[in-house]
């Protein structure tokens, strides 16, 4: 068995079924890229096998000192990224409300002007020589994590003739089973662009959208340094194996 990064006994049960009505559907025509990239046939369902209930784990040892500090992890020595300095923190929980330890979070974002460091990116806003745009963290025993970055700018994108993405940070999440694998986006409380965005609008339930909006958290700010936003992430819960019949060796 691999290291869990936790003192808890590993859990092995299948994961709660995914609520497909809560997620955006594959086809959301207002988000044009989904039109030719959305499967049209029904998904084939089955309860998790070992191939879904197991998953890779990542140890804290792989992290560099600045991995969770996007203000400095690409900056020249003594310099830092330009923009509104923020702390993003929160917990990764499962649907049972338990903190999930040892979760690898990988994030990426545009700079303060709304420009990504990517050769396919054509927005006229300038690159920040001190900002790369990627970072990562692994949750602690209680599922908690914290990052330091700059607030990304909103930006226009080629979809409709005048569509703008709200400020957002992309999060990739590894839980304890590959069935928990998730990529999502974090938005910022109060951003009026959230409710005009065709990608956000693929989610039909208002409460589900609100679950992706980080709250301004004045109690976690660093005075005279950085504002703070709290963003919790919820992964699929795991069933108890207490009453499951399993053949020997399985």
């Amino acid at each position, binding site marked *: 068995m691999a290291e869990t990064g936790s003192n808890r006994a590993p859990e092995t049960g299948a994961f709660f079924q995914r609520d497909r009505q809560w997620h955006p559907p*594959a086809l959301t025509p207002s988000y044009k890229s989904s039109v030719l990239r959305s499967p049209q046939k029904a998904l084939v369902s089955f*309860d998790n096998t070992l191939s879904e209930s197991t998953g890779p784990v990542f140890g804290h040892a792989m992290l560099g000192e600045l991995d969770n500090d996007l203000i400095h992890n*690409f900056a020249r020595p003594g310099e830092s990224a330009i923009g509104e300095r923020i702390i993003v923190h929160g917990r990764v929980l499962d*649907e049972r409300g338990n903190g999930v330890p040892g979760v690898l979070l990988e994030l990426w974002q545009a700079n303060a002007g709304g420009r990504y460091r990517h050769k396919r990116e054509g927005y006229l806003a300038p690159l920040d020589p001190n900002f790369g745009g990627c970072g990562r963290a692994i949750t602690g025993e209680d599922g908690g994590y914290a990052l330091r970055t700059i607030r990304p700018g909103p930006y226009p994108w080629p979809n409709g003739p005048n569509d703008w993405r709200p400020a957002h940070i992309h999060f990739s999440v590894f839980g304890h089973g*590959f069935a928990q694998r998730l990529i999502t986006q974090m938005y910022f409380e109060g951003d009026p662009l959230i409710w005009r965005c065709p990608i956000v609008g693929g989610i039909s339930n208002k409460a589900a959208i609100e679950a992706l909006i980080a709250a301004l958290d004045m109690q976690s700010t660093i005075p005279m340094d950085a504002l703070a936003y709290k963003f919790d992430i919820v992964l699929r819960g795991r069933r108890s194996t207490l009453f499951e019949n399993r053949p020997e060796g399985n």
Partner: protein
Amino acid sequence: MAQSLDRLKESPSQTAGPYVHIGLTPNFCGIGGVYASDLGSSMINDQTKGERIELRIRVLDGTGTPLREALVEIWQADANGFYNSPAEMRGAADPNFPGWGRQPTDTETGVCLFQTIKPGRVPFRDGRLMAPHITLWIAARGINVGLHTRLYFSDEEKANAEDPILARIEHRLRVPTLIAERQRDTYVFDIHLQGEKETVFFDS
């Protein structure tokens, strides 16, 4: 009114967008010096047990055009059928094989390559053996929820014929969409997001 079940809802998925490489394969897209290497870019070393194979994967949209900015992750058992995971209770997996890999599709050709080993067989929930297979997860611009599918092997006909997941597919004409074609030591696998040859995707 009854008591509340007191459960949370899974965070809704959002697309990885066109710049997924910045976060998940930064060295590949020219952002050097942040991480020593891209996570998941190498799966095997000299000590890894098992038959060396290459996976040659493309992801095609509804017009048959390969996606040139997709991200593919794979998760598989070791040569003996054990997963390198804390939830693997049957025994210890090969310590020289993480079982997980990640590759971007080539920005020109749309091909992504994995150097890995052929996995052993893993039991289904009832103890029957599943055919050797690799779990795939695909993220890209235009994909709202990461897509889950499996790669099976063309030279495992007998095992494939008794695989309980393949057996679940009602439309038998679609089963070959999950079977990678062996060409020497390379398995070629095209994933069709739409159309007549649409790959079987799973909800598990």
